[in-house]
C-alpha cells in the first residue's frame, strides 16, 4: 500500500505543477479588467489608464497603475483580496469572496472599443 500511495501523490503533484507551469507560460498581457459583483458585470477599466476606482459602493478600492491592477483596500474581514497582489495577465483574478466581487484581466473584446479609448 505504501508505495502505491507515494506514486499516487506524486502523480497528483505532477499534474498540479504541470498545469501551473502551463498557465504561467501561456499568459498574455491583458487589455483591461472586468469587475463582477454577484456574477454581474459591474465595470470595465482599461489597464493603460492610471486611476483609482471605488467598487461596489466603496467596499473595495481598485487601483490601476503602470499597467497592473490591484485592490488597495476592502471592508472584508480577511482582506485576502488586498493581499492577492497585482494582476496584469489575461486569466488572472483578484477575488473578494465575502463581497462576491471579482476583478479579472480581460483581453480585447471585439465589441468594446470604448474600453481602449
Amino acid at each position, binding site marked *: 500500500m505504501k508505495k502505491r500511495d507515494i506514486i499516487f501523490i506524486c502523480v497528483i503533484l505532477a499534474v498540479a505543477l504541470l*498545469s501551473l507551469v502551463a498557465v504561467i507560460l501561456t499568459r498574455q498581457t491583458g487589455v483591461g479588467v472586468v469587475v463582477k459583483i454577484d456574477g454581474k458585470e459591474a465595470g470595465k477599466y482599461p489597464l493603460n489608464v492610471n486611476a483609482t476606482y471605488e467598487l461596489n459602493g466603496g467596499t473595495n478600492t481598485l487601483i490601476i497603475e503602470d499597467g497592473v491592477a490591484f485592490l488597495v483596500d476592502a471592508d472584508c474581514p480577511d482582506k485576502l483580496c488586498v*493581499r492577492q497582489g497585482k494582476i496584469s495577465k489575461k486569466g488572472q483574478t483578484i477575488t473578494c469572496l465575502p463581497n462576491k466581487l471579482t476583478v*479579472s484581466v480581460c483581453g480585447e473584446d471585439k465589441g468594446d472599443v470604448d474600453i481602449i479609448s
Partner: protein
Amino acid sequence: MKPKKLALLGISIMLSMILSYIESQIPAFVAVPGVKVGFPNIVTVFVLYTLGPKDACIVNIIRVFATGLLFGNPISITYSLCGAVLSLVGMIALKATNWFSIVSVSVVGGVLHNVGQILIAVIITETQQLVYYLPVLFISGTIAGIVIGIAAGIIVKKLKHIIL
C-alpha cells in the same frame, strides 16, 4: 440508534467544530481563498475508517452547518458544503476500492474539498478565471492531506479498539 454510537457521533461533530474554529484563527499564509490545513478532516477521515461512510457524511455535513450557523453565514455554508460533499464522495469511493491507504484517501479528500469550493465560487461569481487557482490549491490540498492523513492514521490505529 445505539446510545454509544450517538455519543460518538456527537463528540466527533463537536471535535470537528472545534478544529474548524481553531483553523479559522490561523491567518492565511497564501492569498488564495480557500487554502486551509483542513484539521476537521482528521475527524472525518477517522470516522470514515472506524464508524463507516454514512457516519462520516453525517459528521462532516452537520459540522458544516453548525459551524456555518455559529461562525459564518449562508454564503460560507454554501462554499463549505460543496467542498465537503465532493470531498466525501471522493474519499468514500477511493476507500471502497481498497487500493490506497488512509493517507491517499485523505489527500483526495483535501484536494476535492478545495476543488469543490472553487467550482462553486466559479458558479456564484460567474468568473471562469477562478479555475486558475486550481493548481495552487491542488498542491496545498495534497500537502495538507498528507499531514492530516498521517495524523488520522495514527489516531485510528490507537483508538480503533475503543470505537468498535
